[in-house]
């Protein structure tokens, strides 16, 4: 069955839909966590430490966190590999452009591929910046996420990279969520408006929620 799914364009889209929804679920949890930055260093750092102790005593220290990380890496890789293979196939299926061309489909739809690449690069930068601290500006402090976040968004490039990526994320979710519903066969004529509304609301809330953090630092509300 795995073979049938992976070898079919419809099956590969299913892989994209499922992995996309897993990442989307994670992002909802992520944005809720991020917004705690508005309640001060104490609450934000406490939340960050709690992430390592989730599930104790059943789970060992950091086990839950690592489990989530493994699931996310699998989802990202599955999503990216499917997207790459499907895109190559799509480009091969339409090698010649029309002389009388015009933009096809909506902006969100047309930017799925480039938007996805931007998001992939962003994730690498984001992890190197705030998880490992490799490219962090102004001395990365392990265990002090509040200060690290303030440092990142005190640089102009930190803000630019982050805000551009979050706008790309919003567009990606806007088309991606609705498309996932179609791929998984849950869309229908009667549900279409509801699904499009959910996609737009999710895209808007996640983008606004994530951008609220750099805006907070820039305006001095978070410092």
């Amino acid at each position: 069955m795995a073979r049938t799914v992976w070898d079919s364009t419809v099956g590969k889209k299913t892989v994209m839909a499922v992995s996309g929804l897993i990442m989307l679920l994670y992002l909802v949890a992520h944005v809720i966590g991020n917004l705690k930055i508005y309640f001060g260093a104490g609450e934000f750092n406490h939340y960050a430490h709690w992430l390592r102790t989730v599930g104790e005593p059943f789970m060992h220290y950091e086990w839950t966190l690592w489990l989530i990380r493994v699931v996310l890496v699998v989802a990202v890789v599955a999503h990216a590999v499917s997207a790459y293979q499907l895109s190559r196939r799509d480009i091969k299926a339409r090698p010649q452009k029309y002389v009388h061309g015009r933009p096809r489909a909506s902006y969100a739809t047309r930017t799925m591929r480039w938007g996805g690449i931007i998001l992939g690069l962003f994730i690498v930068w984001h992890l190197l910046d705030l998880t490992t601290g490799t490219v962090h500006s102004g001395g990365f402090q392990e265990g002090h996420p509040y200060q690290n976040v303030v440092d990142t968004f005190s640089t102009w490039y930190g803000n630019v990279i982050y805000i551009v990526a979050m706008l790309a994320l919003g567009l990606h979710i806007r088309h991606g969520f609705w498309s996932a519903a179609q791929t998984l066969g849950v869309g229908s004529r009667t549900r279409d408006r509801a699904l499009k509304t959910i996609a737009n609301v999710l895209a808007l809330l996640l983008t606004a929620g994530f951008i609220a953090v750099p805006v907070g630092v820039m305006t001095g509300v978070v410092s």
Partner: protein
Amino acid sequence: MKLTLRVWRQKNADAEGAMSTYEVDGISPDMSFLEMLDTLNEELILKGEDPVAFDHDCREGICGACSLVIDGDAHGPERTTTCQLHMRSFRDGDTIDIEPWRASAFPVIKDLVVDRSAFDRIIQAGGYITAPTGSAPEAHATPVPKADADSAFEHAECIGCGACVAACPNGAAMLFTSAKINHLNVLPQGAPERESRVLNMVAQMDEEGFGGCTLTGECATACPKGIPLVSITSMNKEWLRATRKSARS
């Protein structure tokens, strides 16, 4: 009406093609688009030139033979087939670009004619339905809910012209294949082969080198018969169901 036509000319499948410019005069707004091309071809023949090759048959919008991408739109600016498109949809002095369907699964044979036999092979992959032939069965023997009958009829309207493939930026045949699958899969008469039909037709669709669906919706916008985009969703649902079922058996 006086028009400037920029037409894709290509000698044969292996030749390099290019756009050629022609002027046509004395076009009536009541002519169909194909009649306008007939007028051009008569002039070309009189001048001893090679007429423009294009597909056409019934000229009443039901056979699916005519094609043409007109000013970037499959079947032109109106939501109908090219044969049912009339010159009143254009203005005197317009320049019109006429190109063949573009997809690697639909290679150009000559000028504006493409080989759409990939569609026939997708239909063949669907196989037959196990229905007794002979005299017509008693109408009440197999009850079909009204909603299902309507849905089947809506999908059966597909004439297989290929506008969906031509309009799709990925050259995907999802709308065509879904129309053909759903047409039979919603009916009790199509139920015995419900799983094999969707699995085989989707496999053949991939085999032919069509692209995948990115839900741009261009196909449903171009479809002269109004096959809805949600048809693809239904096909995906059928495919997932059949894959799960075949994994169990």
